[in-house]
Structure formats: structure tokens, C-alpha cells
């Protein structure tokens, strides 16, 4: 009889360990089914959370072979085929505090969600008695974002969160913020943008793991980028904004990045000077050339085309 083996990363009262369970293979079964099978027939102490088992509630997110996904919609057949093994690693999703085994602490995430005022500030022309009005086109602009099921998969392998959770919000929080920013009925988009800006909006490292992990095919990284655009248009500026604008300026001017002016434009003279030693090392390795301050780059060949592309992109944004 073919056996499926789960190596489950368990945790209880300060103790972490991996426990191995095997059970008979059955076709067309889900990863969650396997967990329930273990709990019911092998080890009642195995702890996990699940509710709808139809991928709409977001409760059963776990890491399967290192990737966050919903246990209820992930087929054992697909996983064993994709990874070429009947042994499957199962762990709690990352960047959450683990309560026990695969159960993680969502309560601790609520205050982070609240940071961006995750509720609508309804425009004054609407009221409780009549509800609101919205064109079908405006409805389409934000409705995708309302499909977020708060499963946390986007946060699990977010490289920024893994490096530091304190100065960045979970990707779904930005998605939630953008849901209101893009809703034509919201009277105060900046009430969502400002706190997002203050809480790491420019710190995303663009690894795109949030997009590749989202079981609902949402795009938190795109939401972050849209929120940045709104913030910048509203005049909110920080190093991130200046860095992006410096990129844009260099692109238009020469089609090449000028690493020296980039630092000056982003960090300013004082902060750049503080990194003098680092700059010297870069210079020594030929990564930057301070002479470029005096002798600017020549525009690259085909600069006209580059400028046309930038212009087209900016018009598309409008």
C-alpha cells in the first residue's frame, strides 16, 4: 500500500520538534484531509485550525514543503507530483507567532490591521437610509481586493517581514487599505494612505512572494505600488519616494542610473556623507565613480525610445 508521510513541524509550550506520521494513500485527497486523518486515527494531540474546507474562510493556511497555501484546496496528488516525493513537510505559516503546532496567533495581527483604518469613510452624500451609489465600472475597480480572505499566506514568506516585522505591515494590510483607496465611495482615501505611508509603504523589497502565494490570486505588491503612487501624488515624500523619483529622473535624462547622485537625492548630503566609508569601498571595487558628479553620463543609445516608454507608462498611470 502506498504511504503518504507528513513531517510536521510541531511546537508546544516552548518546545519545537518535527514529528513524522504516515498513512495510507487515497486519490483526490487534500492536505487538510491528511491532517484530519492523523488527528482522528493516530495522534489526537496534533493541533491545526480549519473551518470551511472550501477555500473561502482562510483558516487552514499552512506551509507545505516551504510554501504557504490553504490545506483545504491543496491536493496531496499535486504536491507529491510537483515535488516528486510522497514525504511532505508541513509547518505553520511564517511571520506569525505560533500558538501550538500549526495554529498561529491571529489576535496579535488585529492591531496591525487596524493601523490603516480598515473601514470605509462613506462620502457625505450617502446615508444609512439610502445606502450608497456606485457605477458598475467603479465597482470593478476595487472589488477584487475585497476577495481577500485574511489567510496570511502573503505574509508567510514575505522577505521584508522575515527581516523585520516592526517597520512593515503584513501585505494583506496594504491590500485592505487599497481596497478603500480605490473605492469611489470613500471620502478619505488619505486616512488609509497616510498610515500605510508611515508604516513601511516604501519598505517592500519587491520579492513578489505575496503575489505568488495568494490563493485568491490577489496582488498585494501591486497594491503597495498603487498606494505609493497615491501617496506621492499627495506630496508624501520620504527616502523611498525620493529614491523612486531619482530613478525616474536618471531614466529620462540618460537612461542610466547615476549611483552617486542617487544617494545624494535619496539620502541628502548629510546622510550620504555618513556613508562615506561605504562609498569609498564601492569606489575601490569600481561600483561607483564620484567623477560622475562632475562629468555626467552621456545619454544611452536609444534614449528617445526610453523616454517614449517612460512617457507612455506615466500616461497609462493617469
Amino acid at each position, binding site marked *: 500500500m502506498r504511504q503518504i508521510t507528513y513531517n510536521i513541524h510541531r511546537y*508546544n*509550550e516552548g518546545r519545537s520538534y518535527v514529528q513524522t506520521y504516515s498513512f495510507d494513500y487515497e486519490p*483526490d485527497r487534500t492536505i487538510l484531509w491528511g491532517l484530519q486523518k492523523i*488527528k*482522528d*486515527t493516530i*495522534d*489526537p*494531540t496534533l*493541533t*491545526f*485550525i*480549519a*473551518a*470551511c*474546507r*472550501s*477555500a*473561502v*474562510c*482562510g*483558516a487552514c493556511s499552512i506551509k507545505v514543503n516551504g510554501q504557504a497555501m490553504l490545506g483545504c*484546496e491543496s491536493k496531496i496528488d499535486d504536491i507529491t507530483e510537483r515535488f516528486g516525493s510522497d514525504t511532505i513537510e508541513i509547518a505553520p505559516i511564517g511571520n506569525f507567532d505560533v*500558538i*501550538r*503546532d500549526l*495554529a498561529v*496567533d*491571529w*489576535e496579535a495581527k*488585529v492591531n496591525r*490591521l*487596524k493601523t490603516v*483604518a*480598515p*473601514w*470605509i469613510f*462613506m462620502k457625505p452624500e*450617502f*446615508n*444609512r*437610509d*439610502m*445606502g*450608497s*451609489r*456606485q*457605477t*458598475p465600472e467603479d*465597482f470593478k475597480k476595487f*472589488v477584487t481586493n*475585497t*476577495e*481577500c*480572505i*485574511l489567510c496570511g499566506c502573503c505574509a508567510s514568506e514575505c522577505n521584508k517581514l522575515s527581516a523585520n516585522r516592526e517597520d512593515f505591515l503584513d501585505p494583506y494590510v496594504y491590500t485592505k487599505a487599497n481596497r*478603500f483607496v480605490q*473605492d469611489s*465611495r*470613500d471620502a478619505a482615501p488619505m486616512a488609509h494612505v497616510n498610515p500605510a505611508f508611515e508604516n513601511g509603504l516604501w519598505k517592500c523589497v519587491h520579492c513578489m512572494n505575496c503575489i505568488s502565494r495568494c490563493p485568491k490570486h490577489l496582488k498585494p505588491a501591486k497594491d503597495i505600488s498603487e498606494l505609493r503612487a497615491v501617496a506621492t501624488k499627495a506630496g508624501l515624500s520620504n527616502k523611498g519616494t525620493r529614491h523612486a523619483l531619482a530613478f525616474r529622473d536618471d531614466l529620462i535624462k540618460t537612461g542610466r542610473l547615476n549611483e552617486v547622485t542617487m544617494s545624494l537625492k535619496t539620502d541628502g548630503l548629510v546622510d550620504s556623507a555618513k556613508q562615506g566609508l561605504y562609498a569609498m569601498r564601492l569606489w575601490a571595487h569600481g561600483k561607483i565613480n564620484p567623477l560622475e558628479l562632475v562629468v555626467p553620463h552621456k545619454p544611452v543609445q536609444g534614449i528617445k525610445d526610453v523616454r517614449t516608454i517612460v512617457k507612455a507608462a506615466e500616461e497609462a498611470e493617469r
Partner: protein
Amino acid sequence: MEQFDVLVIGSGGAGQRAALEAAHQEGLRVALITKIFPSRSATAMAQGGINGVLNNVAKEDTIEDHIFDTVKGSDYLADQDAVEFFINRCPELIKELDYFGVPFSRTSENKIAQRNFGGQAYPRTCYSADKTGHVILHTLYEQCLKENVHFLQDWYLLDIVKTDDGAVGGVVAWNMKEGRVEKIATTALVIATGGAGRMYWTRTSNPYLSTGDGMAACFRAGVALKDPEMVQFHPTGLGKSGILMSEAVRGEGGYLLNNKGERFMKDYAPSKMELAPRDVVAKAIETEIAEGRGFGTGLDAYVVADVRHLPKEVILEKLHGIRDLAITFEHADPLVQPIPIRPTCHYSMGGIDVNDYKTCGTCVPGLFAAGEAACVSIHGANRLGGNSLADAVVFGKVAGEGAVDYVKNNAAKDATKALNDAANSWEQKFREVTGRTTGRPIAEIRDEMALSMWNNVGIFREEKKMELELETLNRLIEEYKTCYVGDTNRTFNMAFVNYIEVGSLLTVAKAVTLGALRRKESRGSHLREDFAKRDDANFLNHTIIKLKEDGEYEVGQSEVVITRFEPKERTY
């Protein structure tokens, strides 16, 4: 000890709407207990929509029509005064949801879009694509966060505690993270813990959470269960998993086909066809399967829903959630192949006996119930699609109002001693139960309950099978007393929680069986093979089941309120 004015149990649509109502009141201490993160509940799974006469699509629709459809849909078992009260409030509650920011789909006039749904005269089901429940639940959660509702998350109701004079005194709850019994004093208590579909375990569309905890706790606290036998089987569960496929698939024009490729609804509801009410469609599918016109055999048998004749945009835009489900869980893409379906247990029409629909109050002072956990009764023997989300928000609000009014008019009563006693007894119980090293595993008891309930008190019912089921349940209840749980840990002990859940399910399943035995007729979702006809002379009344002092169930009845619609034969 925690102390509140209003305590809500359950974080679905009804619970969160109730908490929101109470939180709007200045100076009240309000809290909500939930055994899981608040956006996970069954409400999130409702796909199709929420009913209310807004006239955004059908100008000729009226409140009167909605009342009549609901009463007729209930097979005249609903209380008509309660239905009237309910239907009149639906439009304002839907507009309020819109104002809270629910992303409703829109008409070309920028108003809330409305679609056809089974058993209704006009398109009056407001929707957001096919994720209506999900967006309503998330929006209510947003509003609760805005109003700073105090969530006691990962807390689990153990028992309701009463004062010496029989009013609500508080509850004892299991703090899942800390692994300890908590005492909570409260003046008013709203039970909104949802249904009990998990008595059929995997043969239900309900989440793992729907274990009838509130129904069982109220039952132990002396409140009756009303019409528990009225369990709705949704006609279109997915073939393999029992996961719900929304009625939208029929509403948008999908066909139901048997293995001969016939639209078999022509033989059961020639005028409404696929848009006939749920019980009619469920019975039709089961009959086709029983008479050999399904695909597959035994419990794996099914018929199919076919939407391939619909425009591709309709499938991609209005049914995309259904398409996702069919591809993921049935390996069938509705664009190119029919979807295997068969009935699945979907909704508990019966529940905690609410005796005042204007407040959602029960016979215990200070105790209110709303949503699927409650029986008001507005759904009677069969609930219309789109009326459950409406029920959740309308009666969630009503229960919240009722609780607030109660707090204003009644001083908090001291129940410290009773709370201490209950807490001590549960603490002892935790140690005794989790410390057992022998006994029948709880999962085995659960599985036997589910299989026998499906076979004996499922869609089709008859005396002999149900008598047999009563014996089985009584035996399981005995085995439960010494069952094996197998986890002594304090922290997040899901085995202990599951143990209590199975206890709740056994309690409710026995009431379902006794109710179904009493009702020697077929009405709405309750189909007796030995009594195929509705019998208004003897059974146009509610089943009322109470727990006696000695632990036995007492089966009785109460009157159905009929105001303007005299019972007629129910045909579509």
C-alpha cells in the same frame, strides 16, 4: 472575572451585527466571544445573496410578495407575524450594509444589483458576485473594528450560568490559548453560534465550526429547541465533498440533467423548473438517483449542473467563485463540462426557541438568540435562499437592540457563586476527560453519529429507521460519557474543544430525531416516506423539545401564528 453588560457568543453575521448594535450605545460594556478568528464563520460561505424588496430591478415587487414567498416557502410553518416584521426590516438593513461599505454588484442605475433566486416571484436577491456572505462578514468585521468591539478571540462557550431567580448571570468559557476556564458575568447574553450541520460531519456544506454549541448550551439552560427536525438539504452540493455550490448556478439559468441528459425538473416543477425551491429540487435529485437516472452508485452517486449554454461572460463574471470551486474540488471546469452535484445538509431552520421576535428574547430573562442558532420562526419548514443572510443581519440587530433594552431596564444580578461552581466543575471535567487513557475515541463516536444520522434521519425519513437512530444516539451518548479524548495539554487543546463540540452535536441530533419522529407528515424539508402528505390538521404546529430535570427529552408542540395567508397546497 470579566464583567460585561452585553455579551455576544459567535462572530458570524448575526453575532457581529448584534455586537455592533450594542457597541453603538454609549457606556455599555460589550464583548464578543468567538472560537475562531471572526471572519471564518459560516456567513463567509454564503455565496448567492441577501433578500430585500428594493425594487432596483423589479419595480413591481412588493413587501407583500416577499412575505408571501417566505411563508409559502416555509410550507406555512413560519410564524406570519414574525415574517412580516422580518421582511419589513430587510430593505433598511441591506441599505445599511451598503452604507457600511459592502461592495454590492451594481445595476446600470448605480444601485444594488438584484437577481432571481429559488422560490421567489421577482429578482430581489442583492448580491456581490457570488461572494455575498464573505463581503458582508468582512464589512461587519471592519465596522466592529471601527467601533472597538471587544473580541474575546479563541474563547469557547462552555455553559450558560443563571442567577438564583432564573435570569442570565453569565457564562463560563474555555480560554483556548491560555487553557483555562474563564468566568464572565453579563447582564444580557446573545447566542449567535450558528447551525449544527456537522451532525452529518462531511455530508454538509457547513464549516467545521457548525456544531450547535449555542443550541446545546441553551437547551441545558432550560430553553426549548423549536422545530429541530427542520434541516435543509441544499440541492446542489458538490458531488465529492458536499461543499456548497450556490443557487446562483440555477438563478443564472443553469440546467440540471440526469444521466439521459434530460432536464428532469420538468417532471417535478414544470413551471419553475430549476428555480423551484430547495426542498423540491433536493427531492427531485434524490429521486432521480434512487430510480437509477444518476451517475455513479451509492453515496458517490450524483446528477449534473450544466451551464455551458450560458454566455461565457456570465460564467466568468457572475459565477466565477462557483467555477473556482468546481475546478478545485471536482476537477471540472463549468465552461467545458457539467458539474457533479448532489444534496448536502445546509441549514438548521430550527433552533433555540425565540418567543419574542421583536427582541429575539427567549424564556430565560436576559437570554437572546439570533441567526441560524435561533428559531424565530421565519423559515418554518424550509428557508428560501437569500433569506439567511437577511435573517442574520436583521435579527442580529434586533437581538442587539433587545439586549441593550434589557440592560437598561434590568440591574445586573450577581451570579458569582453559580459562576464559581460552574467554573470549578468544568475545570474538574477538563482534567477528568483529557486524562482518560481508555474509552472509545471521540472521532469514532462522531463518525458513527454522522453516518447513521445521514442514513436514518437524512433527507428521507421513516419511523423504523428513526427509532433505530434513537437507539444508536442513546448508545453513543452513553459511550460519550467515557470516551477517549487523548490530549492533556492546556494550550490550544483542540481535542478538548472537539470533544465538547461532539457533545453539542449529539444533544442536537437527538432533538432532531425526536422532532422528526413526532412529525408524522411531510412538510418542507422534512420528508417522511411513511407520511408523504402534509397534515395541517395535526401538525400545523411547532415541535418544542425541552430538557427535563432527569435528563430526558420532553417532546411537545406550540402554535403557529397565521395572520393573513391561510395554508394552501404548496406547488411551484
